[in-house]
């Protein structure tokens, strides 16, 4: 289970840009790195293509995991956007959190500025994780 999540400012910017580009639909993807430090985002297709629901495309999900392994990275988090609602796990998020080992990052566009928060979801309960924003922009493969 991820205990600490460091995300470079550049990748936080990627998440916001992805959320804005997909709005009003929700967008989603994976974050990979090492020892809690995110090194790369993997934007994936929202197979649900809805404004209030997301589902990772399983084939893209598999390809992303393979790419992570080839780069000696692990999946640290799944992210998705809430275009019009807060950055907190909804009942849908909690009910569909099938992997307790990763963090769940939510990008909210509901306020004047984007809001990005991270959570652990396990046993139908969510706990917020602090996101440590870093300035290291090493996102090379």
């Amino acid at each position, binding site marked *: 289970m991820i205990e600490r999540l460091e995300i470079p400012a550049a990748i936080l910017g990627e998440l916001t840009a992805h959320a804005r580009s997909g709005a009003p639909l929700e967008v989603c993807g994976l974050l990979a790195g090492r020892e809690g430090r995110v090194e790369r985002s993997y934007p994936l297709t929202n197979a649900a293509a809805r404004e209030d629901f997301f*589902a990772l495309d*399983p084939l893209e999900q598999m390809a992303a*995991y*393979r790419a992570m392994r080839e780069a000696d990275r692990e999946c640290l988090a799944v992210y998705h956007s809430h275009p019009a609602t807060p950055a907190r796990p909804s009942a849908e*998020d909690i009910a569909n959190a099938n992997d307790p080992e990763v963090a769940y990052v939510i990008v909210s566009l509901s306020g004047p500025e984007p809001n990005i928060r991270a959570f652990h979801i396990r046993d139908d309960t969510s706990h917020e994780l602090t996101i440590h924003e870093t300035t290291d922009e090493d996102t090379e493969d």
Partner: protein
Amino acid sequence: MALRVYINGRRDETEGPISVTDLLASKKIRPEVCTVAVNRAVLPREEYAATTVGDTDEVEIMLQMAGGAGVDWRSDDR
């Protein structure tokens, strides 16, 4: 050599041969919340019971990653 299994990209090992149904049960994964690929080919769910995987196979289990805002949020609660 153990059967190579990856669960959401994480390496796991299991002794084969074993059916995909039994493999999922051994990992406490419900079939309805995952997609399974054997040697990179997605396996239809109705073939899980009849498909046996062994030491030369690579099994990738993608847990369904889903959710979303739903309709249970107050728009002013940020």
